[in-house]
């Protein structure tokens, strides 16, 4: 496996809580990997560590051969500009700019292209997500699914090598969700992207991911192609993928003995 992202011995804490304890994991180049796990385990945190928005307390994050956590501010911005795109959970469109200007933003900021060429590029990206006709709308006029597609067009505007998706399916109606699923797969293949996708929708993730990476309690509890994990993973992995309410992850939050508690009151 040829890793595009390589994380080794990474530790990260928030206050008292150790979110990652010496985590080591590689993400393969040119594939879609879905990072899955319960809410609050630190999936978004992992994306931010990869994007250099957070610094690990220990260990290293290597993206495209560069140690993200040791880059200067300027080098970090350059790496992001040239290699990375990220789709945020809320879309994060600039509310004071139209759809067209949102997608044009990175191009106008980072290149000296003439306005006619920017126009062509923007329309191309918007066409790819099926929203060329919505170019003059403002973000407040878009539905949740449309906003996320515009954000997707914006994040691929600079032709990144790596796409990070933070919960791209959450809060969408079934049709919009289907569109996003299809787009992520299609874009990854057409552009040869390395994609990391944070999600807890098992079905959608399995349908587009080449690999699943299951995270729980700051550890990777399973990594591999979806089929393999479903059939050969350990109990914890299978519980998560099948959505069993009880198993190695207990249904009950740790508590005093039930009988005793009832009797003592």
């Amino acid at each position, binding site marked *: 496996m040829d890793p595009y992202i390589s994380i080794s011995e990474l530790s990260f804490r928030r206050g008292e809580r150790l979110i990652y304890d010496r985590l080591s994991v590689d993400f393969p180049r040119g594939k879609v990997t879905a990072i899955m796990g319960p809410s609050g385990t630190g999936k978004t945190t992992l994306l931010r560590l990869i*994007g250099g*928005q957070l610094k690990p307390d220990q260990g290293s994050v290597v993206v495209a051969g560069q140690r993200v956590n040791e880059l200067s*501010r300027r080098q970090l*911005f*350059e*790496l*992001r*500009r*040239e290699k*990375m*795109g*990220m789709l*945020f*959970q*809320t879309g*994060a*469109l*600039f*509310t004071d700019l139209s759809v067209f200007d949102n997608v044009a*933003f*990175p191009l106008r*900021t*980072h290149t000296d292209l003439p306005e006619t060429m920017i126009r062509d590029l923007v329309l191309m990206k918007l066409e790819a997500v099926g929203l060329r006709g919505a170019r003059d709308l403002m973000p407040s006029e878009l539905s949740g699914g449309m906003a996320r597609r515009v*954000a997707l067009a*914006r*994040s691929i505007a*600079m032709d990144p090598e790596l796409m*990070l998706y933070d919960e791209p399916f959450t809060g969408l109606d079934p049709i919009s969700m289907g569109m996003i699923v299809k787009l992520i797969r299609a874009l990854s293949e057409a552009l040869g992207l390395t994609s990391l996708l944070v999600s807890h929708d098992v079905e959608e993730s399995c349908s587009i991911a080449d690999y699943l990476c299951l995270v729980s309690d700051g550890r990777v509890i399973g990594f591999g192609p979806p089929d393999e994990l479903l059939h050969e993973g350990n109990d914890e992995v299978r519980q998560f993928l099948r959505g069993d309410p009880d198993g190695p992850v207990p249904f009950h939050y740790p508590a005093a003995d039930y009988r005793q508690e009832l009797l003592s009151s």
Partner: protein
Amino acid sequence: MMVQRLGRRGVSAMQSMGRAAILFYRSLLWGGPGSAGWRDLLQQIHAVGVRSLSIIIVAGFFVGMVLGLQGYTILIDFGSEAALGTMVSLTLLRELGPVMTALLFAGRAGSALTAEIGLMKTTEQLSAMEMMGVDPLKRVITPRLWAGMIAVPILALLFSTVGIWGGAFVAVDLLGIDEGAYWGNMQASVEFYEDVVKGIVKSVVFGLVVTWIAVFQGYDSVPTSEGIGKATTQTVVVSSLAVLGLDFVLTAIMLGGV
């Protein structure tokens, strides 16, 4: 327990001052007024200026009228009501213009700036910018800091001008002071450097400080609606106190003959 809490508060205040200093350093010392494009700078000046324009004009007129009334009752006892124009204009140019403008600006434009930037943070727009390789400090913060520094002195001059008219309205039209005396004595005694320039210097400093506090509070806010609410209140409180405190310091320095 008490001491511990006090200590923790002190430490967190120091830490946020440190973060404010870093923000200042990265956005202002590294970025000139045109770092996000001149059009953007103009837009920001327009935004903060227009937001505060009506309140500045109305407040300036009222304050000038009050000064006219109060000044008249004081000066008439000494038989020197002809000096009313001088008194009104000096009070406005040296003190009330810069200070009142900064306070009004903090309440109107400052709180709006905090809310705007806090909202950009909450909706991950700032993070999105970072991930596109665009530094939000240069792109969002720098032009707003410059805009505040440019807009506040202009607004302060406007405040003083309107105030002087307000004073004239009370003095000449209502109290019947001689029009020539009001304007003539004013022109004879107001000095361009001593009074006008020093007032402008003050309001440049106030504009910078208020805007700095406002953008920092937004940038540093807890990204929830509750956090934004708290940050806007904090902006008004902190920047008002900062303006009044700084006014004393600046006045002392200027009267000391710097």
